[in-house]
């Protein structure tokens, strides 16, 4: 981990100056030779974990591809039912949150504690907005019309017998993605708590901010694939 030149350090309140959780006081785990090695390892571990996440979603994408090939009519109809404007809006929301997540890491590296918190709060707010749009304008409306997965499907004007399968994949794909949004937001909530309470992240210690941001970029990335596959391709 490269230490940034710190020209404008944040004032540290006396109450947390000596706290072992403050970033200046954090020490590496007993089995590491240095904090740098610990940081590198944590980051490698996170990348491996993201690989597993990609493979998890790969199952859904694979299912999408198979059924698209088997039932092209149902799939074309399916994407017509979705309003690309809400999808695009949510894409914008996630892109902004990815930017603030990256900013949060930079602020931690520069010891700008106030802006670190602001960026995390904006990220969490974007996550909430994403979920709100998803639930209020998409899930609730669609379910109200009977566009539900599998045997719960009761939409009277379906054109193709296999549309329930489309909705199954839609809800599972976007649902598991939404779950990841919630988990990512919760992770940033933890970061925010430690940042506020202890100023736990700074130029020499920002592992959790970095890893939370990596996770968040993955959440963003998955949506970048889900959005065109579900909303744009007819």
């Amino acid at each position, binding site marked *: 981990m490269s230490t940034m030149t710190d020209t404008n350090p944040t004032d540290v309140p006396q109450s947390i100056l000596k706290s072992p959780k403050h970033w200046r006081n954090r020490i590496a785990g007993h089995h590491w030779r240095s904090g740098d090695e610990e940081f590198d390892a*944590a980051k*490698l571990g996170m990348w491996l974990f993201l690989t*597993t*996440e990609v493979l998890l979603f790969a*199952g859904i994408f694979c299912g999408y591809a198979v059924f698209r090939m*088997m039932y092209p009519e149902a799939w074309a109809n399916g994407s017509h039912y979705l309003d690309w404007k809400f999808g695009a809006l949510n894409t914008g929301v996630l892109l902004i949150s990815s930017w603030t997540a990256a900013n949060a890491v930079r602020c931690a590296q520069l010891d700008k504690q106030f802006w670190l918190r602001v960026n995390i709060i904006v990220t969490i707010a974007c996550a909430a907005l994403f979920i709100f749009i998803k639930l209020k304008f998409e899930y609730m409306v669609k379910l109200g019309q009977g566009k539900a997965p599998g045997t719960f499907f009761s939409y009277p004007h379906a054109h193709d017998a296999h549309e329930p*399968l489309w909705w*199954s994949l839609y809800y*599972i794909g976007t649902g598991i993605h939404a779950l990841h949004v919630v988990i990512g937001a919760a992770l940033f909530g933890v970061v925010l708590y430690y940042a506020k309470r202890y100023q736990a992240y700074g130029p020499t210690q920002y592992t959790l901010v970095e890893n939370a941001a990596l996770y968040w970029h993955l959440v963003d990335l998955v949506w970048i694939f889900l959005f065109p596959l579900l909303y744009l391709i007819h």
Partner: protein
Amino acid sequence: MSTLDTHAGHHDEGSYLSGPPGIMAKIWQWATTVDHKKIGVMYLFAVLFMFFVGGTAALLVRYELIDPMRDVITQSVNADGDLVETTTSTGENLRDLFSGLGVAGDLTGTQIYNRAFTLHGAVMVFMFIVPSIPASLGNFFLPVMLGAKDVAFPRLNLLSWYIYLFGSAFGILSILMGGVETGWTFYTPYSTTTDADHWRVVLMVTAAFILGFSSILTGLNFVVTVHKLRAPGMGWFDMPLFIWAVYATSIIQVLATPVIGITLLLLIFERIMNIGIFDPAMGGDPVLYQHFFWFYSHPVVYVMILPAMGIISELLAIHARKHIFGYRAIAFSSLGIAGVSFLVWGHHIFTAMGELAAILFSGLTFLVAIPTAIKVFNWIATLYKGSIVLNTPMCYGLMFLFTFSIGGLTGLPLATLATDLHLHDSYYVVAHFHYVMMGGTVIAFMGGIHHWWPKMFGKMYNEPGALIGMGLVFIGFNVTFFTQFFLGTQGMPRRYANYVDEFQTLHQISTYGSWILGLGFLVHLAVFVHSLIAGEKAPANPWGGLTLEWECESPPIEHNFHHEPIVKHGPYDFETTVPPHWDPKDYPIHPDAGKAAH
């Protein structure tokens, strides 16, 4: 603080097994430990318990198959001169057994049989053999062999352990509620339609789903540990081959397990909410389930066998006091097997795909034989002109060469499309699978446990007792499973509770073999218990090993090493190196040892 002070502080550390006084304090210490050695030992006892559970189910399966189920119709004439027919069922052994215990309910004999073999398969695969070697011996020895104080993420390691317990609890709950009949593969639509009003299938599938996370986190932890925590002086090609094998295993665990995660999740949704993905009635595709399932479950058989191959590399070199032959070939063949493992899943479902795809998968499957054979030939070359000591670990190593070679070679006819048409879904497959998994993994695991037992617990085991157990296991195993090759080629289908009379002799021999096998493991259990209670104190290096775990004390101290080890010799340089803690009365060493190689 100077480094000298740190080292001085480490000198009065006790063994990792020594804990605070008081039983509750000890339990609390073990339950909250982040020490990889304690976690490894807890895993060891847990997987051995699961082996016992799955093994008991296997004995039940064999007990049912000792004779066929028959309805015997007896005709007699009663007092009024009428002809009376009485029907008696024979051969429903499990139902008779469970009725005697009062737990059979209104289940038929075949239903009980189906539950017994599903219980055997699910417990053995998900709760025993996948975590077996990596999570127990791997957890304990991977950091020590690398010269590290712990794995990269000790708290994550503890989390994997609790996820394992949590997942197993779901599985056990499902079993206690009556078990499932789906087979361990949970094939749709059978798994989505049986016992429609019961939650047992959902619980069992959830158990496998949760256990997958435990597997992923352990694998992830090991990959990072190997990358980041090797001792100074240890390059990639100075690592013991056990580490290479566990590393290759961990990569498969990380890459394959998420796919079974999403598959089982879809299956759970299918079961609870009828989403239709795998339901042909709604346009779903049950064969898609099989593709997803085997995309994980074929690589995972290499998760089961690769660490076993790593153990064999250690056992044969050390107990023959011979430098391993073809170090790099063995290391790269581990990675080669891991790579090829992702390309061969289709050979489980030849009949469910097009001809071209089947031919491609058949060809790719043959590729697995190449790295595997490279390993076997290298092991045999290692033994050549070695000073072979026929102790229990070595005997298990030799047994592995024998049984695993049979298992590997009998796989080739299954990869060949023409012969597979005849052999698939027959007892031939059962025999092949058990020769690889049991004759490979379990045998190597037993060898590894004996090899590292003195290091883990600081006690020697009783050698003659263990050799008797080993002999019984060898005889029992071969009697049980070799007969099944004949059953399979003659046409006995797998998973059937019943069969035609012609097969009875072979089935009986197989069942008698399973009893010898069970007896062998009971002897081993007795040897282990005896060792823990009254075993002789183990020296630090009873076998003359050169890998870093033999530089530790037996059992190791809390932080493994008094000083950070610096690696100056290869893991198998027996010809040129005096082993650490060498005591002439333990074993002789090579006459040239101590003379520098260059």
